[in-house]
């Protein structure tokens, strides 16, 4: 299908020119990076920008580095780059493992994690890892630069804290100084182009600090303060996991749709939470666990 809507195309050579274009178009421009979501929206006519601003020429957005205890991921970094990065594997294996669950190679070669959080669909696979590690989104515009905690980023399905004249520069993920391990468990029908029907991300530190996040079971991905408080400082055992499972239904608000029923999603979140917690603590204890096949 052709794109019937007409727009202009700009590929700025500097960040300054990109920001000037965003200011000039006053919300009528869209940023073009991997375009794996945007191209579908353009074809369907659900977005009708006057201008597309291609940021792939901005090399300052290509950063993938470890700086001052933080993993810095530029807006142009693709999911496949995260999958293949030795740095990611060493510092934050959950990030590469989460990236591997996104669509398939042909999409991951183009799709960016920054674009994923800007599309902000409730099922986005990058949300749990960013939430449990308290990532920060660095955005900039001609008005200045600000840092948005990921917990304040998602406002509603497909709505974020990003203003119309702003551009995501990078995502910063603070890597805990203590030993830690995160695990993302995604419920899908098959590997490949499937969206999450439900997803659970956990992070455990050697001091028994726990972080828990869910995606695809509410209008926005979320952290569970209640579950984190319940688990804090305690060693996992069957009784504690039973209590944790019991808290899940009140922490999430899934709907029934064509992909899964509300009841199934709640049930699977309980199952996946337990498996994720067991896997994360097991990995922290040096066990070998196949995190790709927990469901």
């Amino acid at each position, binding site marked *: 299908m052709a794109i019937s809507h*007409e*727009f202009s195309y700009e590929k700025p050579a500097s960040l300054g020119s990109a920001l000037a274009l965003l200011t000039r178009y006053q919300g009528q421009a869209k940023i073009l990076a991997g*375009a794996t979501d945007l*191209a*579908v929206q353009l074809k369907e006519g659900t977005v009708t920008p006057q201008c597309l601003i291609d940021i792939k020429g901005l090399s300052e957005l290509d950063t993938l580095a470890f700086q001052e205890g933080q993993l810095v991921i530029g807006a142009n970094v693709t999911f496949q780059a995260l999958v293949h990065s030795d740095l990611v594997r060493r510092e934050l294996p959950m990030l590469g493992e989460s990236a591997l669950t996104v669509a*398939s*190679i042909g*999409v991951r070669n183009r799709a960016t994690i920054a674009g994923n959080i800007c599309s902000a669909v409730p099922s986005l696979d990058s949300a749990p890892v960013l939430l449990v590690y308290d990532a920060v989104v660095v955005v900039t515009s001609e008005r200045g630069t600000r840092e948005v905690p990921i917990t304040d980023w998602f406002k509603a399905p497909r709505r974020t804290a990003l203003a119309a004249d702003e551009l995501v520069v990078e995502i910063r993920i603070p890597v805990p100084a203590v030993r830690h391990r995160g695990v993302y468990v995604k419920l899908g029908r*098959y590997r490949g*182009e499937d969206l999450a029907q439900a997803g659970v991300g956990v992070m455990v530190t050697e001091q028994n600090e726990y972080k828990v996040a869910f995606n695809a079971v509410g209008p926005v991905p979320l952290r569970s303060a209640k579950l984190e408080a319940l688990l804090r400082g305690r060693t996992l055992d069957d009784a504690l996991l039973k209590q944790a499972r019991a808290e899940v239904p009140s922490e999430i608000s899934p709907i029934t749709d064509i992909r899964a029923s509300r009841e199934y999603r709640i049930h699977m979140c309980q199952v996946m939470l337990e498996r994720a917690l067991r896997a994360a603590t097991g990995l922290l204890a040096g066990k070998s666990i196949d995190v790709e096949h927990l469901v």
Partner: protein
Amino acid sequence: MKKITYVINGEARHLHVEPNDVLLDVLRDKLGLKSPKCGCDRGDCGACAVLLDGKSVRSCLILAIECDGMAIETVEGIGQDGLSALQEKFIALNSFQCGFCAPGVTISATELLRNNPRPTLDDVKEALSGNLCRCTGYTPIIEAVLQAGNEGGEHGKL
């Protein structure tokens, strides 16, 4: 209209495109390269896959104008100096039935074998997980990729 340049299957081509032209349509309709197919038209099925600077991408999700100056390889290019070891295996094992998914599968598997000449079964399944085939059940396709890797990998024409 903007004038752009591609290196398509090793040959520089100049063409004029509109900002809203999709790469798949330009390849098929302006350049006459019919191997990439339009299946789902939303990036789910893999039938439109091509190699862009060596990486498999969904040509239905890319604007033609984005690829100015880049190298694009289609199945026409992979087979232009004779069939690759992979293509020979596809034929020998009768891997396809209707053949609609074959170009996309060939692109994904070629990318895999160039990066990883001796793939495992899991590697092959992962590489092909974005290519839908409604005829074969995948078994003869996967077997051909594995055999091409085992026999032709490092020395074959991939």
